[in-house]
């Protein structure tokens, strides 16, 4: 029987249970609150054109960057009025999903 087996622990509303844990369960990532000042790539792609620079004051809706992804030239726009604090990518650079592109202040 399974009594010799070393089990992991899983905490549920109805108490703590012993059981085998799955790879998917172990790979869960804790929730991270999204910072609206950090603009990340929503899809992987290539930086086609940077339209802003560090220190520049920008208006909501202004295009900051063109990200070519999935055969589309995607416009990355400013979510609100702000100043550009940092740009983490260069023209022509390939970016992965979730990679930080621009930080606003």
């Amino acid at each position, binding site marked *: *029987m*399974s*009594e010799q087996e070393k*089990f992991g622990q*899983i*905490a*549920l*509303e*109805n*108490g*703590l*249970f*012993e*059981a*085998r*844990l*799955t*790879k*998917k*369960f172990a790979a*869960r*990532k*804790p*929730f991270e609150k999204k910072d609206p000042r950090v603009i990340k790539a929503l899809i*992987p*792609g290539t930086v086609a054109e940077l339209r802003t620079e560090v220190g520049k004051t920008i208006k909501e809706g202004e295009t900051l960057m063109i990200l070519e992804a*999935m055969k589309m030239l995607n416009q990355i726009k400013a979510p609100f009025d702000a100043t550009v604090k940092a740009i983490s990518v260069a023209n022509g650079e*390939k*970016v*992965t*999903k979730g990679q930080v592109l621009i930080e606003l202040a």
Partner: protein
Amino acid sequence: MSFMQRIIDFFSKKSTKSLGGGEKALSKQKAGGKMTARERIAALLDDGSFHEYDLFVEHNCKDFGMHEKELAADGVITGSGTIGGRPVCIYAQDFTVAGGSLGLMHARKITKVMDHAIKMGMPIIGINDSGGARIQEGVNSLAGYGEIFYRNTLASGVVPQISVILGPCAGGAVYSPALTDFVFVVDNISKMFITGPEVVKTVLGEEISMEDLGGARVQAETAGNAHFFANSEMECFEQIRQLVGFLPDSNRNKAAIIEQKKPKHSYKIEELLPKDSKIPFDVRDIVRSLVDDSEFLEVQELFAPNAITGFGRINGETVGIVGNQALVLAGVLDIDASDKIARFVRFCDSFNIPLVTLVDIPGYLPGSDQEHAGVIRHGAKVLYAYSEASVPKITVILRKAYGGGYIAMCSHHLRADFVFAWPTAEIAVMGPEGAANIIFRSEIMAAENPDEMRKLKVKEYTDKFANPYVAASAGYVDAVIAPEETRAYVAHALQMTRNKEELRPARKHGVAPF
């Protein structure tokens, strides 16, 4: 041409066509560790039962020099045969002919046997081994895929549909298997993905091997697109033969009732069951102690192993078995397990297969990942599938049946026909710890020693509510039974529900929480 010449000419034509891409290509296929399309059909079907159609079909592409090329049987072998004496329609893509690429006539051969299977009411088995669309045929190739997908959908719930992935199956081609009932994969041979590793790399800069992206194990274990995983093609064919044995030919029939056998393992159920309801045990041992000959064919064994689904027989009759698996993740319902259970229940309902549900559920898996990925709508699938099912539904509550999980796991409230509970069952709105913390919160807080008080109150709640008798007193449990009586009770319930009829309000179809 004389009579004899005509006959000789016929045999020579037939043998050339039957060679597919030719000796060289066939040896290359074998060198890659793969069987040829014809070998596969011969190995899967009963000896000598295969009858081929449309060997002489030719493609009609005129572009890119294709008019000069002859593609034997247009890269797919189609026909019918038997498995265990039961009729099936089958097609197998031949990778040695233009990479098994799908053109219009190739697709027409497939849809022809599919139409045949639907009309005659027999399972359709598709063996996939193809590089994808035949680019030279352009939009006609896409039309071919579309015609197949449409028929997959029409055939759904009418005849069992089985897909076998024995090579690449990429791009749009993956959607035919995805629309079928059971997908079989073989380690190191099956590859399924929408976009391959090269595209993923050039477009996205993400480096991943073909195996890690869409290999057999990934599809069976992580993605859940595959239902059966085998280490070799022969093992895979054995699994298919076993599965077909459990199924009816179509939704117009019930599965054949075969000679009944006692369970092979005479487990003493009370010995399998741990003393404490929190200690895990393998629910499949209980299944094997209930079903004929202890034969249990697990479906999606590797995916969401916190729930089990599969086929067995009780007194010779096929049943679909669903259970919570305390051994893995305490048997919680999460997104994957909900998906697995709901899909299986709907398959069984479509094909007149009674459902036996073994309940041992501590609740739903908490966490932001689950909530944000939509555990609410995925969990709803289980409620929907069980409520919708009008086949005989028999539920046995082994241990825990708490809260929403109790309702979802085919309770009387979702119209189970019989609900049995073991004396070890704990049917309650919450587990004792959770409940005590809420009901006795003020007493616990006010106590000099809150931990002691909590323990006391947990015990108080456990003694009073963590049993089958509260639910039985309300008639939500039909009988509290001794574990060793389970097979007899389930068998009796199956006999009593054989002519079950349940009328539902008329509708085109419901809106299942996909």
